[in-house]
């Protein structure tokens, strides 16, 4: 599937920000960034077993002089909390892009609790939280947030709203004569595995 324009712009923004290492726990909403990272000879891409590994990975990269980003889903944020003491206590930058679940046309109720808690939990752990809701400002939000993280040396998370990404489709909708067309950007979910 070819990326939507804003997704390609976000990868370009990461490159402009000087990111050289991407750690990720796979998520359909990050699929383009993950593919682009693996295809980029100037980028290290590391698949993680759990999101907290990515915090420690990014801290090590900073110690070695490389800027890293962690890609994860909102469900993974809860796995990270104690590990965030590492960048917070060491006054290191930390930068993460979080695809949100549980907030927009969510089919899976198991995604709702952590999705709901994500901004508060990150804030409580000392992370500055920003949010990208619209395709036309996602890349700018990433660029500005990366600058905040790496120039001011603070932890920053950008939440990609579920409306921006498109809700995951589990079952094909039944055709219904009562349903009219009328879809917005977020209400036109792409089918994901």
């Amino acid at each position, binding site marked *: 599937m070819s990326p939507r324009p804003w997704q390609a712009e976000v990868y370009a923004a990461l490159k402009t920000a000087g990111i*050289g*290492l991407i750690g990720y726990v796979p998520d359909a909403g990050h699929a383009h960034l993950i593919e682009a990272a693996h295809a980029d000879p100037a980028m*290290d891409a*590391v*698949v*993680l*077993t*759990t999101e*907290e*590994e*990515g*915090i*420690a*990975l*990014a*801290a*090590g*990269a*900073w*110690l*070695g*002089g*490389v800027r*890293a980003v962690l890609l994860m889903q909102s469900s993974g944020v809860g796995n990270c909390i*104690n*590990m965030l*003491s*590492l960048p917070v*206590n*060491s*006054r*290191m930058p930390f930068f993460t892009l979080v695809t949100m679940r549980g907030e927009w046309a969510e089919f899976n109720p198991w995604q709702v609790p952590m999705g709901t808690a994500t901004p508060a939990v990150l804030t409580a752990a000392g992370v500055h939280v920003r949010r990208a809701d619209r395709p036309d400002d996602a890349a700018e939000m990433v660029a500005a947030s990366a600058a905040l993280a790496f120039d001011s040396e603070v932890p920053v998370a950008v939440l990609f709203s579920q409306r921006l990404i498109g809700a995951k489709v589990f079952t094909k909708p039944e055709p219904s004569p009562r349903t009219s067309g009328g879809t917005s950007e977020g209400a036109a979910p792409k089918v994901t595995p």
Partner: protein
Amino acid sequence: MNRNNDGILTPRNDGTLDRRAAVAALLRDPGDLLVVTGLGAPSYDVSAAGDRPQNFYLWGAMGGTAMVGLGIALARKDRRVLVLTGDGDMLMGMGSLATIAAAGAPNLAIAVLDNGRYGETGAQRSHTALAADLAEIAAGCGWSHITTARSMAEVEALRDRLRREPLFAVLRIAPEEQPRHLPPRDGAHLTHRFRRALGIGTD
């Protein structure tokens, strides 16, 4: 692993290596080796062997030591990185053994000081005193250079291998506690001096 007929585990035999002597041997003439240490006694052991700016000590972030090592190793592929940690930290970050093997980092080695105890919290037995073998776990995760040291002669042989190979080494150390030798615990200080030692600007 020992189980009786009822399936009840009996603890393994404890290791006998003196942890301070073993770590001092591993870190003799460290050169420009970059060292990351896990919280608790491994940080004290490395500090006792000689504090230096190329040592990054964790005082928390349990389970993260090996991944900090991977981050450094990927950032500085021209340098050797050694992770020195304990069995409790390695058990908590067990998934990172799979991550590191999958990522491939020829300049990274891990040495686990395995006493089968959670030493900071009252010497409760850990899984490696009961059922788990970290060397076998590493093998199952895809590590190909693996060894377990039980004598000082074997530790001496490790010293060079840890600086040449992507080695996962388990050192079976004695459970006795040693006096605490506290390294600096200000993470920002440790970060800045580590980066400065690598010539990275900290303006």
